[in-house]
């Protein structure tokens, strides 16, 4: 379950990094905004939870388009670290915007599925948790098919492989970057809307999410979407098993320890291509 949320955001990180070469630290904050969008859809406009999910994707995708156009596009020729700083600035903007506009209270998204409990193979779990896993997997499969088989998906892969080459072939690289950013942000948004009913929605909820998403992308190999998905589930499992068998206190540390160990053996991540 947690693995699915991590994997969704990590996929966004991997795609954006692959195409734009920007480590987007603001994606966690975008997940937070997605959570708030879903919260307002259900609580203020009394829409169904499904509508809220779609709403958070759409709103965040539009935000992603805007961010790419006005913030990251002017930085294409600047050194890569500038993108990092800009993403960090965005993180400050989003979090403090949320803090001012929505306050620091923890809010819970109401979902009809959170009350229903079902039994699968002897394990009790709420339908909401199952829903998280199903939607996440559906999105991953859908995205995979999209990237593999549509023209636009091919264009995205082309830009990720070689920006200049893609430009020569007549691909509108800037538009592709915008679309990638929109997809990545939309994924983060839906991830936020999905955890909302289980965990709470609050302005700094994105911080841990994004740090783990980065660990996952690195674990899987930077820019590899498949790696991001597998890495997400590995991380979720490590945390759950570590908390059960070793120590609950240090739950968050296992993931990082594993990361450093994996990188010591395979410097390019599990599924990344070696640079040399």
């Amino acid at each position, binding site marked *: 379950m947690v693995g699915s949320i991590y994997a969704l955001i990590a996929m966004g990180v991997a795609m954006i990094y692959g195409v734009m070469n920007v480590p987007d630290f603001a994606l966690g904050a975008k997940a937070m905004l997605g959570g708030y969008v879903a919260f307002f859809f259900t609580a203020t406009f009394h829409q169904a939870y499904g509508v809220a999910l779609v709403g958070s994707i759409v709103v965040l995708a539009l935000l992603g388009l805007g961010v790419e156009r006005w913030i990251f596009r002017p930085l294409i020729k600047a050194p890569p670290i500038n993108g*990092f*700083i800009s993403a960090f600035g965005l993180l400050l903007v989003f979090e403090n915007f949320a803090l001012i506009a929505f306050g620091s209270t923890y809010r819970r998204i109401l979902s009809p599925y959170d009350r229903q409990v079902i039994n699968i193979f002897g394990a009790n779990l709420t339908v909401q948790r199952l829903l998280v896993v199903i939607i996440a997997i559906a999105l991953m499969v859908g995205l995979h098919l999209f990237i593999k088989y549509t023209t636009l998906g091919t264009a995205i892969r082309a830009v990720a492989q070689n920006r200049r080459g893609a430009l020569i072939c007549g691909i509108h690289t800037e538009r592709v970057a915008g679309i990638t950013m929109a997809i990545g942000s939309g994924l983060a948004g839906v991830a936020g809307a999905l955890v909302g009913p289980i965990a709470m929605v609050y302005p700094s909820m994105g911080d841990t999410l994004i740090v783990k998403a980065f660990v996952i992308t690195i674990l899987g190999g930077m820019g590899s979407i498949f790696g991001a998905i597998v890495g997400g589930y590995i991380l979720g499992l490590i945390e759950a098993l570590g908390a059960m068998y070793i120590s609950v206190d*240090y739950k968050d*540390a296992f993931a990082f320890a594993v990361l450093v160990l994996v990188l010591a053996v395979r*410097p390019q991540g599990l599924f990344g291509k070696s640079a040399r």
Partner: protein
Amino acid sequence: MKRHTVRAVLFAGAALLLAAAVPFLVTNNYLFHLLVMAVIWGILATSLNLVLGYTGLLSLAHGAFFGLGAYTSAILVTKWDWNFWLTIPPAMAVAALFGVLLGLLTLRLEGHYFAVSTLSFGIVVSLVLEKWDDLTEGPRGISSIPAPSPIRLFGFGELQFESSTAKYYLALAALVLCLLFIWRLIHSPIGRALEAIRQNELLASCLGVDLVYYKLLAFSLSAAMAGLAGVLYSVYITYLNPVDAGLWNGFYAVMYIVIGGMGTFWGPLIGTVFLVTLPEFLRMFQEYRLLLLGILLILAITFLPDGITGGAKTLWRRATLRMATRQ
């Protein structure tokens, strides 16, 4: 002496005079506090600049080195009653030791892999500091850290370190020492090796530069310096909690450097003073302060990609060019 060396010495002297005069010029207590913080963060930024600016390694672990130094000194002083001055070497040594260990594991990694590994190290450190309750007091933090013990000057009375003015001068002295050290280092063969690594790693290694050795050297020296900044922080603020060793300090240090001008000698300091005192000038906006800071950051990075020093250089060049063409 060469002409540009003369100019640099003059500039440094003027900056030092101005910095030494700060306690007499600044009467606003809050602004003075921010300036003390700027000096301490300046040490951190200068230390990170050695790695980020001169060697080209984006380390996000410097917040952790800072915290390790701070915690080592604070624990030795409060729990084992050490003399403050004797805790400085072990605090720097602990930070450097972790720097070496982390460096051995991660310095082979490239670009973002290295950045995220150091980031994870930072998270693990603050987590351990939070959970190792017996030693670090956990999330409650270590409070009432005493001021440095007075130094007896034979026949001239004592140097007291109770007031914040005295702590300011202490931090300033440390900053000057660090700057002198960095200045010497970057103008030595080691500095040229680091510069070669930053420009082209492959070429540097082909020319016989031992990549791992030099990177490790820069990384551990810089970690020790970050630890020193942490020690000063702990005696100035007199309170430490695991958040101080967290990611944010490391992030902020990167921000100071990039805004000030990466890989320049004065850039990190200028960026630090600018960004640390900025909240004071944004005070009228109250709770919108951090929001505005974020926006300013984005604008600055978009329009001044080489930071404040880079922008100033361009302006200076344009101005002199215009003067020259007019004559």
